[in-house]
């Protein structure tokens, strides 16, 4: 039976591969036969192809132990502007509403997964890990950047020593960012449950807030180093404080409204989530609050101040899967492959040093907090991924310091690309080894209820 199943599995994968090739050939043929078109309409086909190729490729890579997320990213890179060109730069830009929706779902899901009781129990681990990771990564990665700068990073060669220290500190702050989306993506696929999954999720979600504060602090400190005319100022903290308090207040209100809706109506959550993703995100943007924090707080409130948390998580998971595929595939398509090809040696060194420090930090924090062996061994694995947050902060840094901006951002893109590819693989591997990956198969057709037809 087992060899039969294997043969059947191989047959199915071969069919999927062939069909994926067929769909790609069709898309290529159409783009060649009708070379120009109204961009917005071709975006429809591009989304479809990213969705389909991401779904199929993730299934094809699953037997190799690779996470679905890697499949989505590879699908995006392959169909993107630097490979098959089925999805061009314009299309990638026009997919920003999908990204907004995905990020809101990710933050909601992240918040809704944080159980206050579990977080309280793991507070010691979390506290130590947060402190050690932030300090160690910031200091050591800053040091690594300083060491590598002159021989390996061209744009740092004309910087004065003080400015170089400032840039290195910015790099260190950037290295502290993690990827909530990648963590949620892996947890959603593996349906993992256990200390490692809980710790990683809590760490990544909380570190999101910590990083925003840390980057603001570092920006204030390094400004006089990079720009000698500037003075040390903590003005940005006033804006940041307003932003944080506003986000928490709005998130709390939103969470209570969602909990009330789930309790009283509890239907058509797909449309409600779309309204949250598009409508509320626009309101948040208008108010200049932090969308990630707002949605995370909303999810947290639903989970911990009502008994609707599990229901809410299930709804987001159902809706999110399709959105995540497009989100990560778009991230893959958006990857500047030529830039990565150009900067890969230094990006690899910087990413490697960050991973090493993260690993060391996890060992130290694990000892200090007297963590479970599974955490001491694997806690670092989920903290390697970097994605949207790091890129977003690199845009902020680039805007704040135009002299080094473009080069700094290019290096950030290349390094984040490395972490984006390696991080999810490591985290899934760790979850598998820690025995936290769910063995229960996702529901397929036979488990569906009979059609409600007359």
């Amino acid at each position: 039976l087992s060899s039969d199943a294997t043969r059947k599995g191989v047959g199915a994968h071969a069919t999927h591969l062939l069909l994926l090739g067929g769909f790609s050939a069709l898309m290529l043929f159409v783009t060649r036969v009708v070379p120009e078109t109204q961009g917005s309409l071709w975006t429809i086909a591009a989304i479809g192809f990213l969705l389909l190729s991401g779904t199929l490729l993730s299934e094809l890579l699953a037997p190799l132990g690779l996470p679905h997320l890697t499949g989505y990213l590879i699908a995006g890179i392959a169909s993107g502007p630097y490979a098959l060109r089925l999805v061009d730069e314009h299309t990638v830009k026009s997919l920003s509403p999908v990204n907004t929706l995905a990020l809101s779902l990710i933050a909601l899901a992240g918040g809704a997964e944080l159980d206050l009781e579990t977080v309280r129990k793991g507070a010691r681990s979390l506290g130590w890990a947060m402190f050690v990771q932030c300090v160690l990564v910031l200091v050591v990665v800053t040091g690594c950047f300083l060491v590598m700068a002159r021989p390996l990073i061209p744009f740092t060669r004309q910087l004065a020593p003080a400015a170089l220290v400032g840039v290195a500190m910015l790099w260190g702050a950037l290295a502290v960012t993690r990827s909530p989306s990648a963590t949620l993506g892996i947890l959603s696929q593996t349906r993992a449950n256990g200390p490692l999954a809980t710790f990683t999720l809590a760490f990544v979600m909380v570190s999101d807030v910590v990083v925003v504060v840390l980057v603001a602090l570092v920006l204030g400190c390094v400004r006089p180093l990079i720009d000698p005319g500037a003075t040390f100022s903590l003005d940005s903290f006033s804006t940041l404080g307003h932003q944080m308090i506003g986000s928490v207040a709005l998130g709390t209100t939103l969470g209570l409204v969602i909990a009330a809706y789930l309790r009283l109506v509890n239907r058509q959550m797909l449309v409600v989530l779309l309204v949250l993703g598009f409508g509320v995100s626009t309101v948040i943007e208008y108010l200049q609050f932090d969308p990630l924090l707002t949605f995370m707080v909303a999810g947290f409130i639903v989970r911990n101040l009502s008994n609707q948390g599990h229901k809410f998580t299930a709804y987001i998971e159902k809706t999110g899967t399709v959105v995540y595929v497009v989100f990560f595939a778009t991230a893959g398509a958006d990857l500047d492959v030529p830039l990565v090809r150009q900067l890969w040696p230094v990006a690899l060194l910087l990413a490697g040093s960050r991973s090493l420090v993260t690993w060391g930090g996890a060992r130290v924090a694990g000892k200090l907090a007297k963590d479970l062996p599974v955490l001491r061994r694997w806690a670092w694995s989920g903290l390697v991924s970097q994605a949207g947050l790091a890129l977003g902060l690199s845009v902020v840094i680039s805007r704040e310091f135009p002299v080094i901006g473009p080069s700094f951002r290019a290096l950030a893109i290349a390094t984040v690309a490395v972490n984006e590819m390696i991080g999810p693989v490591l985290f899934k591997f760790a979850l598998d080894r820690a025995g936290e990956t769910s063995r229960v198969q996702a529901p397929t057709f036979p488990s569906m209820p009979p059609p409600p037809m007359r």
Partner: protein
Amino acid sequence: VNAILILMGLLVLSYLGSFLVTGRSVRGVGLPSGVEYAALGYVLGPHALGLVGADNLASFEPVVQVALGWLAFAVGLDFGYAGDKRVRVGSLTLGSLGSILTAAAVAAAAWFTMDRLGVGGSATDRVLIAGGAGAACSETTRHAIRWVVDRYDAKGPLADRINEIAHTDDLFPMIGVAVLFALDPTRNVALAMPLRDWPAITVGLGLLLGGGAAMLLRSEMPIEDTWGVMFGVSLIAIGTATRLAISTLTVTFFMGMAVSVLTRHGAELRAMVGPTERPVLLPALVLAGARIDFHAMPALPWIAAAAIGGRIVAKVATGWLLAASSPPARKAGAFVGLSLLSSGALAMCIGLAFALRFPGPVGDTVLVIATLSATVGEFVGPLRLRRALFLAGELPEPGSSGGVRI
């Protein structure tokens, strides 16, 4: 009004639509054709209050294309099935004959009127208007039958037969749309292609993509991946069709048919996709309504009147065919065919597809005719259907308290 507010409005409509589908207590609420949503769109649109401008409508074109494609996919998936049962061959034949007859009558009436009044532009434009009106006015909406059956608890062989006809009269209008779109192919194609090949390419593309999707859906997949495959292939179909300037509706309709026939999960897929139809339809109807321009062409009221007249005559004739082949229909009187007069979702979709593909007098005229036809059908169809079912003994007397559930 900016795009995000319009989007929110559409999502609210979608929300309401989903309740109309899934809530048993409110099933049967609203008009079966959904034409009131088109009226709402018209009131908000650039030709009435102007709250939704023409530029806003243009920015929502991708959303409309996706909605149209998905609705046609759902119709294709459901083609040949009434509920969970396959329709009988007799119903399929009658549904197809009825739609051909109606399309021909409507097209002839519209053509004759344009010819007499000397309007309609070039010969190609006239063919497009007459053919488009014929395609849009040929169907009987499935929703109207379900609306009456649900609201009045009708049961019996005539209700079943009419329901089956309404589920099988979409094939030829879809082919007609593919042929008409081929009359004005995209100028952008780098490959020389005779006009006659485009309809075959349209149908073939739908079947090819549907076949591919069916092969993917044959294996056991998590439900999320099933949605991924269905959405993915549908969006590829819609994007490809718009790029080739062929009929999106036809491509996705045939794709739905192919998926339904070639996969063993047809019933489950219909159960998955069915509930999405109404939530997608209502926003599409509002956007269709916003595009309606009653001054699209001189003598438009006459052309529309002729087309609707042709539809009424053809439906009465279809009723005679129905009576000849089905004994319970004979009890329903000579005008049983008028109970097939309700049109709605598909008619409006075809009208909207023409408005998008042929912006200007041609597309706008077809959309106006489709809307007016649905409105007239609204006043006549459900009433005549109720009357026919009463005469056939499948419904309590209209006005009596028994059986009527509001």
